[in-house]
């Protein structure tokens, strides 16, 4: 059975560093290269590697499609909700100064960028995994003669 033994072991060793690196990109994006989009894609790659090696059914046990759909929506909601919150506080839409005490606009910018990038990362990661699952979980209709 263990025909793909090396592949399985190496994948198991690599998936945690990939996720850790995605988090690094997400939260270090203010200082170095990277940001929410890149972090989301890298995070999705970890799940996709798992699905390729261990099968899509195993992946759907880890993150069911309902969770993925909810994640996609929650990310956009987090982004837009930040803007709505600043509207409620009497500022312009997506004006992050609303998130801090008056006079400390910089802190508000930091917090706002963190929230917004988190929303982007959540949406991108969930959408990428969902697209992959949608493509991969259908059995292909390729006949042997086509190959």
């Amino acid at each position, binding site marked *: 059975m263990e025909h793909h033994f090396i592949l399985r072991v190496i994948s198991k060793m690599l998936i945690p560093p990939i996720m850790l690196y995605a988090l690094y*990109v997400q939260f270090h*994006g*203010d*200082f*170095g*290269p*990277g*940001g*929410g*989009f*890149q972090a989301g*894609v*890298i995070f*999705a*790659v970890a799940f*996709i*590697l798992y699905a*390729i090696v261990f099968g899509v059914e195993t992946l759907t046990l880890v993150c069911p*499609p309902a969770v993925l*759909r909810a994640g*996609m*929506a929650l*990310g*956009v909601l987090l*982004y*837009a909700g930040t*803007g709505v919150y600043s509207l409620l506080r009497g500022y312009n*839409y*997506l004006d*992050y100064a609303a998130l801090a005490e008056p006079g400390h*606009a*910089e802190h508000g*910018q*930091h917090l*706002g*960028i963190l929230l*917004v*990038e988190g*929303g*982007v990362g959540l*949406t*991108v990661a*969930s*959408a*990428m995994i*969902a*697209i*992959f699952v*949608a*493509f*991969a979980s*259908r059995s*292909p*209709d*390729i006949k042997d003669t*086509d*190959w």
Partner: protein
Amino acid sequence: MVLRDLFAAVMLSGVFSLLSAGLFVALDAVDVAFTEAAVGAGISTVLMLGTMAFTSRTEKPPQHSRALPILVVVVTGAALIYGTADLPPFGSPDTPVQLHVAPEYIERTPHEIGLPNIVTAVLASYRGFDTLGETTVIFTAGIAVIVLLHRSSGRRRKEDEDEEEA
């Protein structure tokens, strides 16, 4: 030299993505190179393969002559190359790009936002509406793919059952 093997095309597009990431690195665009690396190395190959599961392995030979497409490509390429003659030299400080909004961002970011990475500041704060739109586009794309593939697989299953009954 025409490749009809779609597998080879997918693999060579991976090589192209690697090369273009190297190009962005040479142009000193760290964030763009990072995006190209993240998307090109992992996701795009996998998604193109996922699409190939629904199609055949080789491209069909074209039905009509290739003269017109080649003419269009050559004319467009010649026009673009002619246009580059008027461009300012690479990295020159007095191009319109460097004079319009870029110096303002570079000047205002440290005391208004206080982030070392100006690209992140522009993306998330100065151009926050743009990024909201992009996130919505990704959300819409994900929803669209889920809806499309879910529907058609359900219909196929029903057809199979009908055939079995008949």
